[in-house]
């Protein structure tokens, strides 16, 4: 990495994701407990900085100033950097990226990035309003825009321009739900979905059915990042932060340009690959932002796994499954795990660490991985955040 000193991911853990009988604060406590159990060498005093990925605690939990709130829940007293990162659906990766920057610059040596989101609240209509204000609420939200109709339009255009089938959409959901069946922390761990069953679920926003959409989910996750020279104190399998890229190119839907060519993702992934010194063909596995089935298909194309328009065939041919080219979303994805906005990006990094450590169940273990990519989009795919990790072996 060309920027600052080296940074390593040395461990992490997630809570159970789902419709949880637990508050925001309780989820933060659970994530803290899980992190310290997963990284036994880590002490509270080691942690000099805390980055809290939280998209909408004001809306869903009526709580602001959540960085010190989370620190107290987790038993931490940060002395270098404490801050919240908010980037809607990418708030978690934003916390990791900020922790990385703080360590690379020398401001921090040992930083925890935690993501927490509580989304299931007594009034789901209020929750839907909160999701609508991720958009330009006065000019888009007021028309009734939330994520499902926006991504439905992406799917409609992809189907129109490239002939992508409903079956290809369902294939993404089927693959990620199958991976989720090996992840006990996934919201849909114990639910099985095949393409036929997915095709019978109710339509949310045509052409997208319930199984094409990630869920409103409660959950939290935490990782610890350290300066390279400290890494072996915490793990035998440190994972190097090898590259990163980010791009934001519009906000209001009027200014989206092409719905099927995610220019921002091409920029963000290009920058991440350049900074890591690798290309898409080098990847062994990837955690991608499958907030909707169509998202994963467009992402294959923009990240460079396949040509524009070929994303549907890519998943149908099994090229993103175990044994394929680049295994995508072994954790179960947002579709299988649920999507607690702030926690998702952190949970993806936990999967990256666990894959490199070789301790995930065989049903989803990638054989001898070396390079991994993590992608999050946020909002109406108007911001893209990408990180590339290198395993030790």
């Amino acid at each position, binding site marked *: 990495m060309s920027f600052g000193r080296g940074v390593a991911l040395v461990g992490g853990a997630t809570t159970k994701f789902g419709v949880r009988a637990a508050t925001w604060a309780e989820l933060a406590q659970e994530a803290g407990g899980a992190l310290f159990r997963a990284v036994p060498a880590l002490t509270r005093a080691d942690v000099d900085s805390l980055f809290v990925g939280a998209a909408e605690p004001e809306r869903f939990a009526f709580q602001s100033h959540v960085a010190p709130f989370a620190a107290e829940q987790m038993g931490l007293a940060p002395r270098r950097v404490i801050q919240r990162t908010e980037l809607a659906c990418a708030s978690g990766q934003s916390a990791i990226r900020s922790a990385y920057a703080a360590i690379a610059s020398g401001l921090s040596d040992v930083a925890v990035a935690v993501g927490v989101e509580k989304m299931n609240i007594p009034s789901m209509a209020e929750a839907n*309003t909160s999701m609508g204000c991720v958009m330009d*609420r006065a*000019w888009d939200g007021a*028309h009734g825009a939330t994520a499902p*109709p*926006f991504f439905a*339009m992406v799917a409609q*255009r992809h189907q129109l321009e490239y002939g992508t089938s409903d079956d290809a959409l369902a294939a993404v959901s089927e693959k990620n739900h199958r991976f989720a069946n090996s992840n006990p922390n996934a919201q849909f761990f114990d639910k099985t979905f095949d393409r036929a069953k997915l095709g019978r679920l109710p339509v949310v*926003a045509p052409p997208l059915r319930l199984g094409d959409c990630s869920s409103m989910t409660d959950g939290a996750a935490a990782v610890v990042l350290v300066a390279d020279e400290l890494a072996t104190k915490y793990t035998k399998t440190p994972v190097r932060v090898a590259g990163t890229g980010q791009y934001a190119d519009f906000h*209001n839907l009027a200014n989206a340009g092409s719905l099927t060519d995610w220019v921002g993702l091409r920029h963000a992934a290009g920058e991440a690959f350049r900074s890591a010194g690798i290309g898409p063909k080098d990847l062994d596995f990837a955690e991608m932002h499958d907030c909707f089935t169509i998202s994963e298909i467009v992402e294959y194309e923009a990240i460079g796994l396949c040509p524009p328009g070929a994303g549907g065939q890519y998943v149908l041919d099994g090229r993103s499954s175990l044994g394929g080219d680049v295994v995508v979303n072994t954790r179960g994805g947002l579709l299988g795990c649920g999507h607690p906005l702030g926690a998702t990006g952190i949970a993806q990094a936990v999967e990256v660490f666990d894959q490199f450590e070789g301790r995930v169940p065989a049903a989803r273990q990638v054989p001898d991985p070396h390079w991994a990519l993590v992608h999050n989009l946020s909002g109406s795919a108007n911001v893209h955040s990408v990180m590339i990790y290198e395993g030790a072996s």
Partner: protein
Amino acid sequence: MAGSSEAPRRRAAVLAPPEPAPPKSEPEPVKKPAAPLPFLLDFFPLEDEKNTRLAAFFRNLKEGRLTTTKCRSDGTLAWPPRVVCPQCHQADLDWVDLPMVGRIYAFSAVLMGAPLGMESEVPFVVGLVDIPDVPFRLFGRIVGTPWEQCHVGQKVRAEPYELPDGRVFYRFRTVG
């Protein structure tokens, strides 16, 4: 960007005519609940001079005109309307009329998961509309045709509608 070339530019032509009661199969026009939503749950912007420097947009809309700002310095046409040009950062902007007629570029419908206050409007159609001669599309609610019968390329016309508290907003109505 594709779009219709027959957009009317005269004010009189764009006022929505009085409408007959819609047939049963047609989506209901957008209605807001009688009880106002708390401010932080209400998507619709406050539109008077006390609250925004874009009050002219809503005054123009009440007259049946869909307008936005154009920079006097570099000609940038922006959406949504601005108080500062996003290109040259000058604050000297004019209000100009947008074409009112365009064609659907993409659409979907909300069949579940509507925000608070919009639940009774389900199912409703939203879409991105290509309008001619501007560097953006317009997003909005589309009324007049059930979602099952809407199609990409369908002609729509922008129209104002009034909220129960007197505020005004815009939507699209399918033409023909």
